[in-house]
C-alpha cells in the first residue's frame, strides 16, 4: 500500500455534499468547487492533477468498488471510451447545464416560479421541498441550488451504476469534467 496523504481522504466530499443537500438545498452551491477547481488547474498548467489526485468522486468510486468490493470489475464496453461518446456526453451535459442556468435566470427575473424539485437523470422530478427553508436572497439562488444538486445526484447515480457493472472508476471515462479538462490539456499541448 502506498502512504496515504491528506488528499486521499477527499472521497468524503461527495457523501457529505449529498447529505447536506437533503437538509438545506442551498449547500448545493458547494458543487461549484467541483467545477471551478478542475477547470482552473487545467487552464493554468496543472494538467489533470485534479482527476489524478484530488477528485473525491473518483476516490469514492475507487473505495466503493475496490475496498467495499461492490464492483464486478468487468471491462467497460468500448464505446464508453470513444471520443464520440465522451464528447457527445459532454455536449449533452453542457446543454442541460445551460438550460438550468436559463431557468435560474428566469426565476431571478420573476418570469418563472421557483420549482422545489430535484431532477434525476434529467427526467424524474423528486419533490425536495423538505430541504428548502427559504432564502433572504432571490429565489433564483435556490433555483440554481436545486439545479446543481440535480446534476450532482445524477452523476453520482450514473457513476454508481457503472461502478457496480464495470470497473470502479468507470465514471471517469465519460465524466464531463474529466473530458473537458483532458480536452483543455490536449489543446494546450497542441495535439
Amino acid at each position, binding site marked *: 500500500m502506498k502512504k496515504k496523504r491528506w488528499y486521499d481522504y477527499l472521497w468524503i466530499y461527495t457523501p457529505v455534499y449529498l447529505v447536506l443537500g437533503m437538509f438545506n438545498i442551498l449547500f448545493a452551491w458547494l458543487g461549484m468547487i467541483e467545477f471551478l477547481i478542475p477547470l482552473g488547474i487545467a487552464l493554468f498548467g496543472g494538467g489533470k492533477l485534479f482527476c489524478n489526485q484530488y477528485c473525491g468522486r473518483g476516490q469514492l468510486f*475507487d473505495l466503493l468498488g475496490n475496498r467495499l468490493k461492490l464492483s464486478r470489475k468487468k471491462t467497460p464496453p468500448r464505446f464508453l471510451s470513444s471520443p464520440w461518446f465522451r464528447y457527445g456526453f459532454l455536449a449533452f451535459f453542457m446543454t442541460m447545464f445551460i438550460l438550468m442556468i436559463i431557468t435560474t435566470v428566469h426565476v431571478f427575473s420573476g418570469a418563472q416560479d421557483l420549482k422545489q424539485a430535484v431532477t434525476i437523470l434529467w427526467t424524474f422530478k423528486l419533490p425536495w421541498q423538505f430541504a428548502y427553508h427559504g432564502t433572504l436572497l432571490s429565489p433564483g439562488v435556490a433555483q440554481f441550488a436545486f439545479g446543481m444538486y440535480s446534476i450532482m445526484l445524477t452523476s453520482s447515480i450514473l457513476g454508481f451504476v457503472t461502478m457496480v457493472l464495470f470497473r470502479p472508476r468507470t465514471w471517469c471515462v465519460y465524466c464531463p469534467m474529466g473530458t473537458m479538462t483532458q480536452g483543455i490539456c490536449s489543446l494546450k499541448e497542441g495535439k
Partner: protein
Amino acid sequence: MSRYLAVVGERCVACGACMKVCPKNAIAVKHGVRAVVSPEQCIGCGLCVKTCPAGIIKKVERE
C-alpha cells in the same frame, strides 16, 4: 528486466487510476493528456491493466 511490459492504448482518458495502483510508480499521466509507461521501471505486474476503467492498457511481451 521483466518479461512483460504495460502499454497504454489510444483512448486513454488521463484519469490516473493506473498510477494510483502501480507499485513501481512506473506509469504516470503526462500533461493531463495521457498515461505514459516508463519501460525501465515497469515490472509487468498487470495491476494497471486490471484497473484502467477505459480498459485500454495491454500487457505485452518485451521485444
